[in-house]
C-alpha cells in the first residue's frame, strides 16, 4: 500500500464509507483530497469491470466490498456508521448495515 495512503488511514484522516468508497474525515488538506479522489477513481474502475462480469450493478458490487472493508478495519481506523457519521473502530465488531452478508 502506498505509504501516504497507509499513513492517512492509520491517522484517521480517511475512512471506509458504507458505499465501498474512501471518504475524507473532517477537513483535510488538498493532498489528502487528491489521494482520496485517486483511490476512488481506481476503485470505481475495478467495481465497473467486476460488476460487468458478475451481472450485478456497480453500486451493489461497491456496497458488498464496503461491507467487507468496514469489517476488516483495524482498531483506530475510521469507518462510516449507520447514521452516516464517522466512527472509530474499536476492538469489537463494527456497526454494519443489515444488508451486509
Amino acid at each position, binding site marked *: 500500500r502506498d505509504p501516504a495512503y497507509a499513513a492517512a488511514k492509520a491517522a484517521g484522516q480517511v475512512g471506509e464509507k458504507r458505499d465501498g468508497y474512501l471518504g475524507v474525515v473532517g477537513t483535510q488538506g488538498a493532498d489528502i483530497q487528491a489521494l482520496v*479522489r*485517486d483511490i476512488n*477513481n*481506481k476503485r*470505481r*474502475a475495478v467495481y*465497473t469491470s467486476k460488476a*460487468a462480469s458478475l451481472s450485478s450493478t456497480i*453500486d451493489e458490487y461497491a456496497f458488498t466490498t464496503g461491507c467487507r472493508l468496514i469489517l476488516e478495519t483495524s482498531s483506530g481506523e475510521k469507518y462510516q456508521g449507520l447514521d452516516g457519521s464517522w466512527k472509530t473502530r474499536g476492538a469489537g465488531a463494527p456497526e454494519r448495515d443489515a444488508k451486509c*452478508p
Partner: protein
Amino acid sequence: PDALSDTLMGLVSSLKGSVQGTGRIDWNAKGITSTGRFASDGLDFAAPFGPVQGLSGTVAFTDLLGLVTAPNQTIKVRSINPGIEVNDGVASFDLHPGYRLVVHGAQWPFMQGTLRLEPVTMTVGAAETRRYTLVVEGLNAQSLIQRMDMNNLSASGVFDGSLPLIFDASGGRIENGQLAARAGGGNVAYVGALTYKDLSAMGNFAFDSLKSVDYKTMDIKLDGSLSGEIITRIRFTGVSQGQGAKRNFLTRQVAKLPIRFVVNIKAPFFQLFGNMRSLYDSNYVADPRALGLVDKNGKPIRKEPVPTVSIQPPVSEDTP
C-alpha cells in the same frame, strides 16, 4: 504522460498510453507565449464516473501553460462506462482560460441508432453538479433486446427521445428520460419455450393470445442511477394481437377494446442486462460452490435468502 497527469492528477487516475507532441515557449517584450500540439493514439484512465479507454486524437494549444486550445478540437473515445458502456465516441470541444471546457457535442453509435450529447460548458476540476442531455435517435428495439441477452423475446420498433443526465459527487443519474416509438409502432413477442409450466388453462389461453402483441404507440420513462437501479415505466397502446398469437372469437372481441398496457419494471439497469438471462437460463447463474455460498457437499455456508424475483403475470396469482 506524467507531466500531463500532474494537471489531471487530482481528476483521473491510472493514466496509461503515450502522448507525443511539441511545445514552444517564447519570451519577448510582450511577455510569454506558449503553444503546442499533442497527439495520442490511445489513452486509458480511470475517471470518477468510470473507466475510459482508447482516448485518441490531436489537440492544438494556443496557450499551453494556460491550457487553452484552438477552437473545435476533436477526439475519439473507444469506450466509456459510466454504468452502461458506450463505444466509438467522437467529441468536439475547446478549452478556454480558467479551465473552462466548452463541449460542442459528442456522438456514439448506439443500438443501430445514435446517442448525441448536446453542447455543454463546464469548469474542469470544479466540484459542480453537471447537467447533460443525451439525445437518442433511431434506437432499434431488436438490438436493445439482443444487447440485453434476452433471446426469448423479440421486439421491433424504432425509438427516439432524450435522456437528461445529472452528474454530481455521488455519480450519474437519469432524470425524466423519455423514449417514444416512431409512427408505425412495432411488436413484442415471446419466442421462448413456456417456462411457467403450471399455468392453468386460462393461463395458457391468455399466454397464447398475448405472446405476440403489436403496439401502435409505446412511451418509455426512465429514472434512476446509471450505476444502480433504474425505474422504467413502459406504456403501450393500440394493442392488437401480433403474428403468431392464437386468434379466436373472444380475442377478436377483446382486440376491439382500447387496452393500455402499463408495465413498470423496477430493476437495476446494469443488472437488467445480465439478470433477465438468469431467470430462465439456469447454467447462466454462477455455480454457488464457486461463489463460496455452499461447501463441497452442498451444505449452504450461510443462510441465503431465496431470490425474490417477483414477476407477477396476472394469471399466476391464485384467485381468492
